[in-house]
């Protein structure tokens, strides 16, 4: 270690370079520049023509295997639904829990797909939002074969067939939905919170957690102002930005959180927070004093979607698996574990039937699920749920700075 601290080293580090050194360095850099100057190529893809899609699918056949990339805790541990798929079709599966964040996943997938290489997955799951939109626009999503969606057509709820971000299910089939609402810690908050205005109440100064994600926080700002995010304009974004800025300047917000909000909430650093429904559900099961609600003014509904990435090796097998998950008994088995909103409404009745024949704790748990508005929202619940603001790339460059200047000041 002594040698590391030799005087010669310090002299070398601190003495100015000679001119010759500088020229040499410059030469090397120039070579690098020449390499890099070609830049990052754009790939904006025109929507595929109908016969091109037909041709693509005509050229594909069943290969007997499929690779499914999903988020953690999104499949029963025994892989029940996937095992049944294997038994019924003879297609073997590989299931990988490799997606943790849409931004990060897109950031990693983009260079690979841009270079025209396969991701190595036949199905990936992404939330509706900016990154999913990018997948469509860059031609990274395979256009689905509508003729192989029989279970989907028969069993999916209407609301999941025609979503604003993917009309006609051209590229995606929903995996599950969830909500962004408010969670609070009942150890510290004794009132029943019902309104989104609680997030702006000086009573909870320094005890409110907001999310760092631009689309999530934008929705809360707009809902608090009575604006429907799906129909919002640039003017609405600015007003929402001002409302959130005022909330921050008043010292109400403790911090802008990522996934770590749920720990802060359960240990009492924050008392009221924006929250994702499934997280709160899991904490409740663990016996923690947290409560989730969708504010009376409205909340956000998001959907995680299955899609086939460009270059997938087994698209036919992928289509079969995605459609298989829409069989009511399979969807029920899946939802009993993940406890989010299933796109298959028949699951509710199946859970009730299962509860009727079960006993003891199982019966209670199944009944709770079947009657939970967080798993089976009613029409009235859906009416107050909003989706994210649909954004073009140009709009995104206006939208993001408005909200990031609040969360990242």
């Amino acid at each position, binding site marked *: 270690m002594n040698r590391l601290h030799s005087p010669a080293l310090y002299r070398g580090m601190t003495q100015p370079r000679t001119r010759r050194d500088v020229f040499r360095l410059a030469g090397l*850099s120039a070579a*690098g520049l020449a390499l890099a100057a070609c*830049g990052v190529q754009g790939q904006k893809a025109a929507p595929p023509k109908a016969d091109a899609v037909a041709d693509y699918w005509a050229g594909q056949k069943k290969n007997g295997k499929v690779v499914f990339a999903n988020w953690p805790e999104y499949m029963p541990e025994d892989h029940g639904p996937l095992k049944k798929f294997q038994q019924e079709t003879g297609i073997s599966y590989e299931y990988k829990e490799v997606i943790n964040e849409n931004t990060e996943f897109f950031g990693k997938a983009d260079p690979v797909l841009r270079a025209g290489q396969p991701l190595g997955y036949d199905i990936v799951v992404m939330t509706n939002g900016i990154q999913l939109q*990018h997948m469509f626009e*860059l031609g990274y999503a395979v256009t689905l074969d509508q003729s192989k969606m029989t279970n989907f057509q028969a069993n999916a709820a209407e609301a999941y067939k025609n979503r604003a971000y993917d009309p006609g299910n051209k590229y995606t089939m929903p995996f599950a939905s969830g909500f962004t609402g408010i969670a609070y810690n009942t150890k510290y908050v004794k009132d029943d919170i019902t309104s989104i205005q609680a997030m702006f109440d000086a009573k909870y100064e320094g005890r409110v957690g907001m999310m760092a994600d631009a689309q999530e926080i934008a929705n809360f700002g707009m809902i608090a102002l009575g604006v429907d995010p799906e129909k919002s304009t640039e003017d609405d974004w600015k007003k929402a930005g001002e409302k959130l800025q005022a909330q921050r300047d008043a010292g109400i917000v403790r911090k802008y959180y990522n996934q*770590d909000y749920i720990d802060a909430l359960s*240990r009492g*650093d924050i008392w009221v927070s924006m929250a994702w429904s499934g997280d709160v559900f899991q904490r409740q099961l663990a016996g923690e004093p947290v409560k989730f609600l969708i504010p009376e003014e409205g909340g956000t509904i998001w959907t995680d979607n299955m899609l086939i990435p460009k270059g997938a090796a087994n698209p036919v097998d992928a289509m079969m698996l995605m459609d298989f998950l829409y069989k009511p008994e399979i969807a029920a088995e899946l939802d009993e574990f993940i406890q989010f909103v299933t796109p298959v409404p028949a699951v509710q009745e199946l859970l009730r039937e299962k509860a009727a024949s079960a006993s003891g704790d199982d019966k209670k748990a199944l009944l709770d699920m079947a009657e939970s508005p967080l798993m089976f929202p009613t029409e009235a619940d859906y009416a107050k749920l909003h989706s994210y603001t649909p954004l073009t790339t140009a709009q995104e460059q206006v939208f993001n700075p408005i909200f990031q200047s609040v969360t990242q000041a």
Partner: protein
Amino acid sequence: MRRLTPYLLALPSWMWLAIFLVVPLAAMASVSLQTGNVIDGFVMTFSFGNYGDALGTYSTQLVRSLGYGATATAAMLVIGYPVAYWIAFKGGSRKSVYLFLLLLPFFVSFVLRTISWGFLLADDGIVLGTLKSWGVLSADFHVLATSFAVIAGLTYNWLPFMILPIYVSLERVDPRLVEAAQDLYATRGTAFRKVVLPLSLPGVFAGVLMTFVPATADPVNAQVLGGTGNTMIGNIIQTEYLVNNDYPTASALSFTLMAVLLVGIFVYARVLGTENVLEAAAR
């Protein structure tokens, strides 16, 4: 052939530097001057305005990062120097044990350690909760989500990188020099000031270098321990790359940060007159 051998032996490391340092840096420099978006692609337009825009928008965070980095480095120096001194002169035969203990936390991932600080310092956690129940602190007092928490986290995470170089330079100080100073009627304080301290300055220089740069660029502490007004430049760069996919702004910010740090270091080296100190140490 024999004359070429040293060059050939050095070739792999030069190639390594060229491929993994110079090329990415050049690519980053190039991207920082491009315009476009992730959908249409980015094209080279030599838009130096990217730098102005990025700096105009994020100067607060840049200045804040430099401030946090400098404060944390100063704190590390104040805490670390006595520790290094103690291990070097009073450690006796157990020196290596102490050094090992110092490095022990590094067997746990850096992010995990920072997150566990979040649990330790929680408002009703082990430390603050106890003090609050004794009535020492008011119920509203909190450490997390303040600049203090971020700076303390930075200080904790890089402290060993300050202590080790100082220890190494102190370890090389010949105790007989101190004795000689005392023979010449220097008090213990004077002997430290005139003999030990100057001889340890190279270690201090290296320690500051090894801690100030990573502490200034770090995004993790601000994200885990900070609050609404503690965003550092590292967080901004991360967001620009991964969330906004605005590669030119991210590259411009990275370059600006690098340039500011390099200039700062050269100025620091000049002001401290390190070379003289080094030459003195070498004799």
